[in-house]
């Protein structure tokens, strides 16, 4: 049931994205807003970097004790009157959730924003079982109307402009007056608010994700801005939490440490508007809240990452800072990546979850500029992990023959100093002479893929090694 990927067509996707004028206009909002907002939020908190170290240490501690914390978490949920379901795969997770919905005779399901529910293809499973699944986060609602997937993990509709949203609302909300004004984001928001309010009040089941699962109390925590995640869980009879294993934190204090870096890294807020701690079903004497509380814990390939070279990826708290700062994401947007998780975190996670055969293109979609690692709130060495995937791809003969041949040739030259010196001593003066007029090459034989998008600067004369030797091996 898990979402179908177009990841193997990354190059075509990217090419298409670069020529999509609407998308390029919308991506300007990522480039301009997220980077600046994160920087100013970080600057306003002197303890920000120390908190990043603290968040990383907590995540590492959890991963080293994950089995024990999962057991404790489960026991606490049960003690509070809830139920925990473990799911090995996307299919198992969807089956569990559909079974809970059916057991309660549900017709309508509202959903808060959840990336793992995208990963497991939950909406399709709910609809296939004859129930209505309504996304209630404004961005998610818009892309659900369009039959699209999120293009960003915290701003799912960031690839769209308001004119496109207006078009969708007019197409779907046909019961509203035709001459209504929908030219402004305010009027679009207000229309969605009205429509979704009725959905909230009529839902039988509410499904949310979780930013944290707290072992100390058996609670799930979501952080949101709209309030839709709260209306989703307090109005229906049943609240189902779907979350991946690594969302566990030991205590509320640990959650607080990570909350302090999460929103700052994501949207540049000190804290999201709503941080909600949910524990079990409603208590005796309560006048609202769900009567039943279920947690579906999704593995879907994560337990296999523990102890592997990709374990550090499980520290990820899904803030989106890596993609907000990524020149490749800025250029092509999220859909080009072809599966659920875009940007640098997606380039590492996607091959881990759907296999390097399917997702191997993504670790190559990086300039290795390192901005992602430098802003990651939990210090995930994303370029290093992408490099591991490139190595695996090479070991498994998954890249094209010409590329493999080239890499092998390069490896031979780089490892044989005499050959390297000889070839560069011949090539540099020739290239310098050929490029003496413009100082650059717009075409080079065997490097057409490179010069198609940028010029190659012409060498200035001596090779690096010759200059190094002339300086006696000193830097200045």
């Amino acid at each position: 049931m898990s979402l179908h990927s177009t990841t193997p067509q990354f190059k075509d996707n990217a090419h298409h994205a670069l020529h999509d004028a609407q998308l390029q206009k919308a991506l300007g909002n990522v480039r301009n807003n997220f980077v600046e907002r994160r920087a100013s939020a970080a600057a306003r908190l002197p303890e920000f970097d120390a908190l990043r170290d603290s968040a990383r240490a907590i995540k590492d501690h959890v991963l080293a004790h994950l089995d024990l914390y999962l057991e404790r978490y489960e026991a606490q949920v049960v003690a509070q009157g809830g139920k925990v379901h473990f799911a090995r795969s996307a299919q198992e997770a969807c089956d569990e959730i559909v079974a809970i919905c059916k057991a309660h005779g549900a017709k309508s399901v509202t959903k808060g924003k959840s990336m793992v529910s995208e990963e497991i293809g939950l909406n399709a499973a709910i609809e296939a079982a004859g129930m209505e699944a309504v996304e209630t986060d404004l961005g998610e609602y818009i892309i659900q109307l369009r039959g699209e997937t999120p293009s960003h993990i915290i701003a799912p509709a960031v690839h769209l402009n308001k004119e496109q949203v207006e078009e969708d609302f007019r197409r779907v909300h046909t019961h509203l007056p035709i001459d209504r004004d929908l030219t402004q984001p305010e009027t679009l928001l207000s229309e969605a608010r009205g429509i979704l309010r009725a959905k909230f009040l009529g839902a039988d089941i509410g499904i949310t994700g979780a930013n944290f699962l707290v072992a100390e109390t058996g609670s799930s925590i979501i952080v949101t801005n709209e309030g839709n995640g709260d209306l989703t869980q307090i109005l229906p009879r049943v609240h189902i939490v779907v979350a991946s294993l690594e969302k566990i934190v030991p205590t509320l204090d640990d959650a607080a440490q990570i909350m302090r870096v999460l929103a700052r890294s994501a949207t540049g807020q000190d804290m999201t508007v709503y941080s909600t701690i949910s524990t079990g079903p409603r208590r005796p004497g309560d006048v609202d809240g769900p009567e039943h509380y279920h947690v579906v814990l999704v593995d879907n390939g994560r337990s296999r990452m523990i102890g592997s070279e990709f374990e550090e990826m499980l520290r990820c708290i899904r803030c989106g800072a890596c993609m907000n700062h990524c020149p490749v994401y800025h250029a092509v947007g999220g859909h080009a990546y072809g599966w659920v998780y875009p940007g640098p975190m997606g380039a590492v996670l996607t091959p881990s979850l759907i296999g390097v055969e399917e997702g191997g293109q993504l670790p190559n979609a990086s300039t290795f500029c390192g901005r992602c690692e430098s802003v990651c709130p939990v210090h995930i060495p994303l370029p290093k992990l992408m490099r591991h995937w490139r190595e695996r791809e090479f070991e498994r003969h998954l890249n094209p023959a010409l590329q493999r041949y080239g890499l092998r040739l390069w490896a031979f030259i780089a490892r044989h100093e005499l050959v390297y010196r000889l070839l560069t001593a011949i090539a540099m003066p020739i290239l310098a002479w050929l490029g003496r007029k413009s100082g650059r090459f717009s075409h080079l034989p065997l490097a057409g893929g490179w010069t198609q998008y940028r010029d190659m600067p012409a060498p200035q004369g001596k090779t690096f090694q010759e200059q190094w030797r002339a300086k006696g091996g000193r830097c200045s």
Partner: protein
Amino acid sequence: MSARDEILATIRQALHQGDDATRRAAVEARLRNTPRGIVPARGQGDRGQQVATFVDEAQRVQASVTQVATAQDIPAEIARYLRSQNLPLTARMGSDPRLSALDWSAAQLEITQGRSNGDDLNGISHAFAGIAETGTVCLLSGAANPTTLNFLPDNHIVVLNQSDLVGDLESAWSRLRQLYGKGQLPRTVNLISGPSRSADIEQQLLLGAHGPRRLHIVLVTD
């Protein structure tokens, strides 16, 4: 093997370092001691500084804050606020005795009690705590302050006693553990920082997405 057992077995196998007792002891110690990590200096200081920080931070996230001297002043302040926003003098609240004890009719406020079903314009809640660091109010579910009042009304008015103001999230956790016991919580703990918002359309920030369009905090010196 069940999904649960298989997942736990896979993780154990990957983590197996021969010494499970040490790992268990580390987990038990952390859950028992609930160590505080790094607590930002921003929310610290004496009561006066904390009040100032709370008000600043709450206003930064578009909440409005008014300070009153005693609980008796609350109805008049809420009436003033509703008039200033051109809102009718009606509101819904839970059964919190701190609110029920007040003379609402003297301020010409028409009060109804109970959870919200989505047709209330104004809701009034009493906060469990306020957090200076981020201008956040902390509300607990229950008949006293039903969670639906935090989200369904267009305008949410929260009463906060100055004596319930703490510097940071960790101090709020301590108070929760004191009140409910270790490992126990009410069904819902809401930490609310400003009114509902969304920037999902072209990254333009708009207030009042699905929850309240306005958040007004009445800080009682008492």
